[in-house]
């Protein structure tokens, strides 16, 4: 049924590039039918950016993918998705199209930008070939024509020197450039609508700002409507014209961006906005903690001292080693939280791993609880491990899937001889689970039966099981939804207050670090560029990189974000000149 009926009867719908009516999608799973999208109706006008926000599992990605007819075989959909092309000459109901007809509209009427640019591009073809692939699918182009078109579009998305770069392979581009290529691929057939699924989540915050600028240009220069799926409220504030908030498969609120952020109506939206961390929230707490310390605290021996620390990863045969950390010096005192901020590849995780004895120190000195880690032997260090807790980034993989939560939490107790077996450790495990606000009955569950936030709390319980004097938290909340993140951070702060451990808190998110850390250290390409209290580093950043990092961070307020964007542009222009 190629439904080409005119929808002009409804005056508003005529300008809509896509209108979704009562969409319901169900999936077949091992535990029976699960409904992912429950009666969603949305409209996107031509040249408009609609952001769909919500937590993982809220149905936002399924909704957006069904616009392209990209649902997996296990899904069944009901409702209507009426999609027009750019010139509003043809109209199709996506759900009733055949596979062949779907191929016809994909790329030319609607296209997609994926989350992870490094996996969305095929590594064995040049980017020019991959852009031309879309052209070949929708018409006959000669090789030269296709290449000329690819060069043109690469230039328009801001790839420098597109004539040479059209022949490059994906690995020759940086992450941000790869995302530009993916966007070029989506734009080449000039579709009326682009579906962007978390287009900046895999990117660093400074690169994210550039990609958001580019997407804004897609709207302004190409006149393309964008459906933006994201969980980052800052990104929404930066780019979106209208926002739809999804929760448990339904749209709970839909409003234009300024109204939504200034005056949210729905309770869930209010909570979601309230849980987004802001810069400057942590100042009071830090001051409170600082005032509670004794005068002798500053002169006591630090828990961790790094002096001129250098860590290299051995290169492949015949290549020079890769320097991950270069000449870094810092201290962590007892009961203090040091926030380590940096983008991917800045060496922040490597430092955390070196303190935990997982990565070897190449040169310099790293003293952890009185042990010199440069050349330390596992046998000597083992006893000290009881004093170090470790929280990993991904709660899904940091638990042995075959052991129950109670057994996992009991592991450190058994290994260090505080309990003989999981059964005798159970009382202590229940106490620990209570401390991280999990009911004791959760101890009998397996890791996959817990949600991400619950698992990360269990992970905290395991880390504090031996009451360590030092806790290393490596991006503990970056895999979590924003509302869950707020609670885990709150819990972390409470545990820190109660148990008084020193902590190294590693994160790429300045706002998160600000919330918890007494002092913040900023890493850039393996070097420590700035260190100081939250007020110093975030209030008056001295180093250029910190300034740019801070300016790139989108804030969840469209009006303030517009001003910040201008500031960032000015900063970038100043850097270039």
């Amino acid at each position, binding site marked *: 049924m190629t439904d080409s009926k005119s929808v002009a009867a409804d005056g508003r719908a005529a300008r809509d590039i896509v209108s979704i009516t009562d969409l319901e999608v*169900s999936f*077949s*799973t*091992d*535990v*029976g*039918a*699960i*409904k*992912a999208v*429950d009666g969603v109706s949305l409209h996107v006008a031509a040249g408009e950016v609609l952001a769909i926000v919500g*937590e*993982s*599992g*809220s149905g936002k990605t399924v909704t957006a993918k069904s616009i392209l007819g990209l649902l997996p075989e*296990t899904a*069944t*959909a*009901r409702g209507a998705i009426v999609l027009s092309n750019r010139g509003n000459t043809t109209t199709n109901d996506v759900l009733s199209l055949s596979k062949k007809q779907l191929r016809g509209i994909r790329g030319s009427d609607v296209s997609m930008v994926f989350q992870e640019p490094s996996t969305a591009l095929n590594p064995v073809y040049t980017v020019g070939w991959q852009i031309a692939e879309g052209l070949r699918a929708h018409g006959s182009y000669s090789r030269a024509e296709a290449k000329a078109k690819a060069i043109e579009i690469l230039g328009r998305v801001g790839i420098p020197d597109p004539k040479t770069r059209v022949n490059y392979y994906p690995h020759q581009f940086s992450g941000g450039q790869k995302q530009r290529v993916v966007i070029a691929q989506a734009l080449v057939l000039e579709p009326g609508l682009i579906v962007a699924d978390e287009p900046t989540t895999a990117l660093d915050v400074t690169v994210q700002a550039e990609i958001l600028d580019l997407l804004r240009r897609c709207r302004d220069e190409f006149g393309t409507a964008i459906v933006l799926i994201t969980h980052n409220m800052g990104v929404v504030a930066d780019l979106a014209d209208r926002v739809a908030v999804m929760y*448990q498969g339904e749209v709970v609120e839909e409003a234009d961006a300024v109204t939504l952020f200034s005056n949210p109506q729905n*309770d869930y939206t209010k*909570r979601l906005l*309230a*849980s987004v961390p802001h810069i400057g929230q942590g100042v009071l707490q830090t001051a409170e903690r600082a005032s509670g310390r004794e005068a002798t605290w500053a002169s006591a021996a630090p828990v961790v001292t790094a002096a001129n620390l250098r860590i290299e990863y051995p290169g492949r045969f015949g290549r020079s080693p890769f320097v991950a950390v270069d000449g870094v010096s810092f201290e962590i005192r007892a009961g203090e939280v040091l926030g380590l901020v940096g983008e991917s590849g800045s060496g922040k995780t490597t430092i955390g791993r070196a303190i*935990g*004895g*997982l990565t070897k120190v190449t040169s310099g000195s790293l003293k952890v609880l009185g042990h010199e880690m440069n050349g330390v032997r596992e046998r000597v260090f083992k*006893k000290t*491990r*009881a004093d170090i807790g*470790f929280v*990993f*980034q991904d709660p899904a*993989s*940091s638990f*042995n*899937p*075959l*052991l129950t939560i109670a057994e996992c939490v009991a*592991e*450190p107790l058994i*290994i*260090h001889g505080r309990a003989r077996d999981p059964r005798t450790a159970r009382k202590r495990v229940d106490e620990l689970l209570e*401390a991280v*606000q*999990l*009911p004791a*009955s*959760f101890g009998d569950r397996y890791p996959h039966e817990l*949600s991400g*936030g*619950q698992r990360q709390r269990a992970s905290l319980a*395991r880390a504090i099981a*031996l009451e360590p004097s030092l806790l290393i938290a490596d991006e503990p909340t970056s895999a979590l939804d924003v509302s*869950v993140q707020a*609670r885990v951070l*709150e*819990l972390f*702060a*409470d545990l820190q207050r109660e148990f008084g451990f020193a902590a190294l808190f590693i994160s790429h998110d300045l706002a998160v670090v600000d919330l918890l850390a007494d002092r913040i250290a900023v890493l850039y390409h393996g070097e420590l560029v700035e260190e100081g209290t939250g007020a110093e580093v975030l209030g008056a950043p001295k180093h250029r990189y910190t300034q740019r990092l801070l300016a790139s961070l989108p804030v969840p307020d469209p009006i303030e974000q517009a001003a910040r964007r201008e500031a960032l542009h000015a900063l970038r222009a100043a850097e270039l000149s």
Partner: protein
Amino acid sequence: MSVELKPRKQSVISRLPVLHQLRQSVGLQRGMLVAGLVITTVYVICAVFAQWIAPYGFAQLRDASGPFGSQQPPSPAHIWGTTVGGYDVFSRVIWGAQTALEVMIVAIIFSIFIGVFLGLVSGYLGGWLDRVLVVVADAIYAFPSLLLAIVMSIVISGGQSSLYGGILAAAISITVVYIPQYFRVIRSEAVRIKSEAFVESAMVIGASTPRIMFRHVLRNSTRTLPLIFTLNASEAVLTLAGLGFLGFGIEPTAAAEWGYDLNKSLSDVTSGIWWTAIFPGIAIVLSVLGVTLVGESLNDLADPRLRGRRAVAAASGSVALTSVVPGGPLEAGPGGLAGLEDTEGEADRDR
């Protein structure tokens, strides 16, 4: 209108390994699994109860009414006829199942422990030990298994094929070929799991290497074992039959063996005596087919991407509870340690 996405609690019976998969399967996969299970069950029953099922012994040439006679066509007394040597075909086929099952068990027991242990050590520890073991495993791959089996049978029994000599020869040659397979599979899994966060989290709490290897790595790397397990079993049967066919098998007076019977029926085939070759041949095919079908379908069912599912009606099912804060406000109850998860915990217990 939301439910927690959690598998229903199941009875003990439906959680048993094979039965659980049987309930889970649909369509063609279920057909394959059921067919494989039926064939394998019949085969195992024949093997275990051969003594009572077979009308005669495997080496019996005569009964009260005199000799059976050679190459007799099927008759009420000998339903599948008799062989050129004067044995009852039906009895030989049934007794042969017993021999084949013994070879399977011995071969699997020999190879699985050594292969898994070596794979685990090699994959987890790495270094020079790993390199040496991988090279040795690759070298063994290059050897034809039947040749190894012949050498083994000569070494073990000097070519004199007694019951245990024959069984051990087949089993050990299988072992030599299959240790590298178990080794490879477990090794690659161990290498993968070694870099998982839960292994590192065991390391940072100071767990000893053997503890990490056996408690955390081993149990997570055995997922593909059932498939090799069944391949191994069927290969064992084929090698035993191959040895028998080549004349390195077990003497008919020591045990019944399908390969030996096939060998002896070679000349019968051209002279129109079909019953001596068909029945042992079918027995070999079915035993291998049944075990392989079970293995293949278990493997497919273990992988959620290959597992078939029934289609669901449009707009059916209920919305899964995905948020950690189910409808409850973030600031509900006392913040922090004073406990807020109770709302969810209690809701859970109610269900």
